[in-house]
């Protein structure tokens, strides 16, 4: 990035960032930035940018977006670094807009009144995030730096959302209303999703080994796990209710363990069933695609079969196996939300409660963390897989 004058003048203008910033500018002026509801259920009244923030605030938002358009067009060597600072800070400070909005419009005398984010705010958030991704791509930053930026933005959001100024925000109200249940839901969600992924990983590993040793196992195993995948998820959850309740009423021991027709047990079983296909397929393919000549080289030099497996085949297959774990984890986190329908708990319970009560903010309280969890798992496992590929990481 130490580009000097004459070279800098040849830097082409960026086209993506101005387009995104311009759209953000138009949308944030056209759409409502926030709404005020007198209570939880009644529809609120929307406020545009100017009305929400006043001249100073609206001017500031406009200025930041205009500045990023200008910055991305000028042939300046360090413009992406400047843009990174600008968008990063704007994203981190975004909840402040809501705070200003609430302080200007929230009626002081009504304790049930709440503020919530309008379409304009969501658009701003979305487009700023896209701009940040584009800038990070142009800068070719290291993953650790990207992660730090993510932590910074998320940390700033969490701190601001917990501050007094945003107490009236409907999402915060819902969170406070749920009390300890949010944490409970988080743990249930994590336990169900990761429990299912771990158990199916072990099962898939055993099945893949069987399939490699014994070709007769291949077709039936792959057929069975593919068949499981084709049943709609709701149907699996439903279908498991009857046999499990029969089982638990027949064996009281199971009841004392919490295994019933509804609850975590059928949810876990269904999640495992769904996770098996991607896991088995990736593990099997990964292990069989290690060239036989390499295994042969190992044997020819005196390795035992065990050493060939653990020192040659497994390490070479690991990136592809982890790719399977990644796909499965994302899928399981999403499906766990559906499992709330049979009383398994997790973030899905907020979503379905919210749908039942027509309280969209409660739906968001369930949906947003589910998405965040999936993105986080995706990022971490991608990093893990990349770090295990020796040459691509270092050459």
């Amino acid at each position: 990035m130490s580009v000097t004058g004459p070279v800098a003048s040849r830097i082409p203008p960026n086209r993506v960032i101005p387009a995104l910033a311009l759209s953000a500018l138009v949308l944030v002026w056209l759409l409502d930035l926030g709404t005020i509801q007198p209570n939880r259920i009644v529809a609120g009244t929307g406020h545009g940018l100017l009305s929400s923030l006043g001249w100073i605030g609206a001017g500031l938002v406009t200025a930041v977006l205009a500045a990023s358009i200008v910055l991305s067009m000028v042939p300046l060597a360090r413009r992406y670094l400047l843009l990174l600072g600008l968008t990063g800070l704007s994203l981190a400070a975004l909840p402040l807009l809501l705070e200003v909005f609430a302080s200007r419009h929230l009626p002081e005398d009504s304790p049930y009144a709440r503020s919530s984010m309008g379409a304009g705010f969501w658009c701003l958030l979305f487009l700023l995030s896209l701009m940040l991704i584009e800038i990070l791509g142009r800068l070719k930053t290291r993953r650790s730096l990207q992660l730090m930026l993510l932590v910074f933005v998320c940390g700033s959001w969490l701190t601001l959302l917990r501050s007094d100024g945003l107490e009236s925000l409907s999402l915060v109200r819902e969170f406070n209303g749920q009390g300890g249940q949010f944490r409970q839901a988080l743990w249930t969600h994590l336990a169900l999703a990761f429990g299912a992924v771990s158990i199916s990983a072990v099962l898939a590993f055993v099945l893949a080994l069987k399939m490699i040793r014994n070709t007769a196992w291949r077709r039936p195993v792959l057929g069975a796990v593919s068949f499981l995948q084709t049943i709609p998820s709701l149907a699996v959850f439903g279908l498991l209710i009857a046999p499990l309740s029969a089982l638990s009423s027949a064996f009281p021991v199971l009841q004392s363990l919490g295994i019933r027709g509804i609850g975590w047990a059928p949810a876990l079983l269904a999640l495992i069933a769904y996770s098996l296909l991607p896991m088995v397929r990736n593990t099997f393919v990964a292990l069989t695609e290690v060239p036989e000549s390499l295994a042969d080289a190992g044997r020819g030099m005196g390795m035992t079969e065990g050493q060939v497996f653990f020192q040659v085949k497994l390490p070479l297959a690991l990136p592809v196996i982890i790719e399977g774990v990644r796909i499965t984890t994302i899928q399981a986190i999403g499906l766990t939300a559906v499992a709330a329908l049979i009383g398994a708990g997790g973030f899905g319970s907020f979503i379905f409660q919210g749908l039942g009560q027509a309280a969209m903010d409660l739906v968001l309280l369930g949906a947003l963390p589910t998405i965040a969890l999936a993105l986080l798992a995706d990022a971490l496992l991608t990093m893990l897989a990349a770090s295990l590929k020796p040459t691509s990481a270092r050459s």
Partner: protein
Amino acid sequence: MIELRNVTRRFGDTVAVDRVNLTIETGEVCVLVGSSGCGKSTTLRMINHLLPHSAGEILVDGEDTTAMNPQQLRLNMGYVIQGTGLFPHWTVARNIAMVPRLLKWPRQRIDARVDELMKLLDLDPATHAHKYPQQLSGGQAQRVGVARALAADPNILLMDEPFGAVDAITRENLQLEMLRIQRQVRKTTVFVTHDIDEALKLASRIAVMDQGRIIQHDTPENILRRPASDFVESLVGKQDRGLKLMSLRPVRDLMTPHGSPKPSRPGADVLREDDNLRLALSVMLWQDLPQVAVFNARGEETGVITRERIIQEGA
């Protein structure tokens, strides 16, 4: 010493190796040569029991290999695989250290050995030790393959087309290095190739194979002078056998030595005692000289060789 007695290997109905008898003396380089699919790799892989033989017996130092623990057998046999077979997830150093690690050598000894081997094979440890196989050129990868086979100082070396996928010049260099190393470490070597010139250059004895059988097993000179069949004759090349024979003999054999070595005279491309006669003749033809001076390894002039004598007695 390796002995194959009536060894046969079948794959289903096809007979890949057919009643082969072959004795490889300790310290000699036996080159298996023959066209593609004639059973060279199969023979090699039966020696370290990667493939069990269908019939016959294989003895290593008098002991039947079927009775031995295969891991123990293989740890004492360096194996260079057709197409290098380096492990892509290990660095060059880790690849070379493979067998010493299996043998649980102490760390320092392994490091020292890896360093030593890389230098022996003309690979700079500082630049190459931490590279991955994909980052090497074909020739470098094959050197690493040879270094890996030599690592634990095995008594026996099995090499399956170790210099297969490289250009002529690199190949020539690797062959010269192989000869140099063989002079230093003297391993009982079974070397597979389909290149007859490589076989003539490296072998103590050559075993010519065709369709799973050994047609002739003899010294390079005898293979050239007295080919056992039309197949061997066409393999070694009917017409240019004269020149090939010349390339088997060193200049030392036919030079006229001086009474005592003369003091050294500077010159880069001088003829040396252990260059072959073919090269000497080529030099004289090119420079249009009736005779040239011969130098020893220390750069002293030790004699002269004449064009006339080469032509009379060379082949």
